[in-house]
């Protein structure tokens, strides 16, 4: 029982992480119907960006003060992710805007591998895992026999807060309305005076900032990073976005928590342990898609003239 509760806590923490990555997948898909397979690498470069800020920009005294170091690293990570995402959109995807759908998809896979290898070659020591400081080292929270690491709790709280802020922004603000309009009907949105390029750049930007912050919090929680963390966690995030109904913000967050819970429970209770958690997650995903192809919260694709 204690183990189960502990795994549920771990699952919620991991779900919080996955949500921050899944939101970028789902939003970009909602606007331009592209599965951006390189989105995991936006998360990964954000983690390295935060680490670089810690290593080379923060003075030794500041490194020890978490409320200075962590915000600085999150801002640094978010900026690196933002730059990577905007360059990716401008150089790789925009020239293919009117190409057949397969072209940007294959390009995304190429960009993904490119960024992994670039990071491996360029970042000192990234040939293997690089230690990441636990800047948020407050004492863990104990409830009965359950231990909640403070950095994990922080990741969960930040993720939930950012998800709520994003949902509110998309539902209430003028640019949020433009994003929803572009997702529903791109041509008619242009007739409203909405510049699709601005909406697309904004969407990539928001997804990147969330992923970059997620990357830094992941490093703080796991305490090491390597160039392939984007691929591993991106796969979970992609599954979460599809499970929740790709294009849906609420769906991506809920899908992320479902996947976080299943992964952590499967790690202990299902055959194969941690080596097989992908298997269980994709079995669930396939099962859901068989009965509900649009995912849990997705819209059924309407037939349009």
């Amino acid at each position, binding site marked *: 029982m204690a183990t189960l509760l502990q795994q549920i806590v771990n699952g919620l923490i991991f779900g919080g992480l996955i949500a921050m990555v899944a939101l970028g997948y789902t939003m970009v898909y909602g606007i331009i119907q592209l599965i951006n397979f390189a989105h995991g690498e936006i998360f990964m470069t954000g983690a390295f960006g935060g680490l670089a800020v810690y290593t080379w920009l923060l003075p030794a005294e500041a490194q020890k003060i978490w409320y200075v170091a962590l915000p600085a690293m999150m801002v640094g990570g978010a900026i690196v992710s933002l730059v990577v995402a905007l360059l990716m959109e401008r150089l790789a995807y925009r020239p293919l805007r009117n190409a057949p759908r397969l072209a940007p998809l294959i390009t995304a896979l190429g960009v993904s591998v490119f960024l992994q290898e670039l990071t491996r070659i360029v970042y000192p020591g990234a040939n293997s895992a690089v230690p990441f400081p636990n800047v948020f080292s407050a004492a863990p929270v104990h409830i009965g026999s359950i231990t909640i690491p403070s950095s994990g709790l922080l990741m969960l709280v930040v993720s939930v807060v950012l998800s709520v802020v994003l949902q509110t922004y998309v539902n209430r603000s003028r640019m949020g309305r433009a994003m929803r309009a572009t997702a529903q009907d791109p041509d008619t949105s*242009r007739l409203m005076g909405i510049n699709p390029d601005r909406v697309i750049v904004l969407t990539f930007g928001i997804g990147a900032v969330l992923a970059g912050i997620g990357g830094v919090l992941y490093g703080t929680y796991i305490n090491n990073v390597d160039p392939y963390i984007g691929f591993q966690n991106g796969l979970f995030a992609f599954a979460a976005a599809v499970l929740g109904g790709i294009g849906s913000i609420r769906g991506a967050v809920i899908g992320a928590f479902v996947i976080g819970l299943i992964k952590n429970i499967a790690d202990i209770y299902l055959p194969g342990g941690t080596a097989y958690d992908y298997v269980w997650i994709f079995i669930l995903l396939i099962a859901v898609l068989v009965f509900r192809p649009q995912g849990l919260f997705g819209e059924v694709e309407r037939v349009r003239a």
Partner: protein
Amino acid sequence: MSETTAAPQAPVSTQTRPLLEVRGLSVAYGAIEAIRDITFSVQAGQIVSLIGSNGAGKTTTLRTISGLLRPKAGEILFEGRPIHTQPAHAILGMGVAHCPEGRRLFPRMTVEENLLLGAYTRSDDGVAEDMERVYELFPVLGERRQNKAGLFSGGEQQMLAIGRAMMSRPRLLMLDEPSMGLSPIMTQRIFDTIRNLRDLGTTVLLVEQNALAALAQSDYGYVVDLGRTTLEGSGHELLADQRVRDAYLGES
């Protein structure tokens, strides 16, 4: 401009520069040429209609004017400036609003959100006031402003589509088949509204298959046939023209 007070039957003045001029417009979908030689102009303050049978090229013409399609040849001048190289969002910003065929509302958004999207480019504080004006014009929308647009009847959706297009305060309002799918009573209401908008100073370019209703309301009209403008005249001249009567008014 001296044309803004033109009575419905007034002849088109050739002295004033038209608000919109379309010259020798040709547009293709891939290898299929949809329009070949569309030439017409719209004087400020008038209702001008393009009539023609299904597939004649009316929708293609409007979509090219609003920048969704690019011409293969020809030019489009708005207030004397070429606009056919501008992106769609910039053309809306210049004062050309397009209420598309089939209404194309955002069905999962509320009435209010649809109207706010119509006012997307505006930053002045008259937006709330204009929204109230739409609600006054179409009380059924005002009563259900928080309802999703997709839940309304065809006629109500058409009102919302026109209201949404008005929210940008356009100088030229282009309407593509506003009477499509509507009952005769609702059609009459929509046409009354269009005339009302013209009287308040909005220039209207109207596309209709319903030639009788359209020409009766129009100051001037053009017949589009197989991608070409073939006949033109005042609304009353065209209504009286035997060729128009034979081809479009269901007389033999």
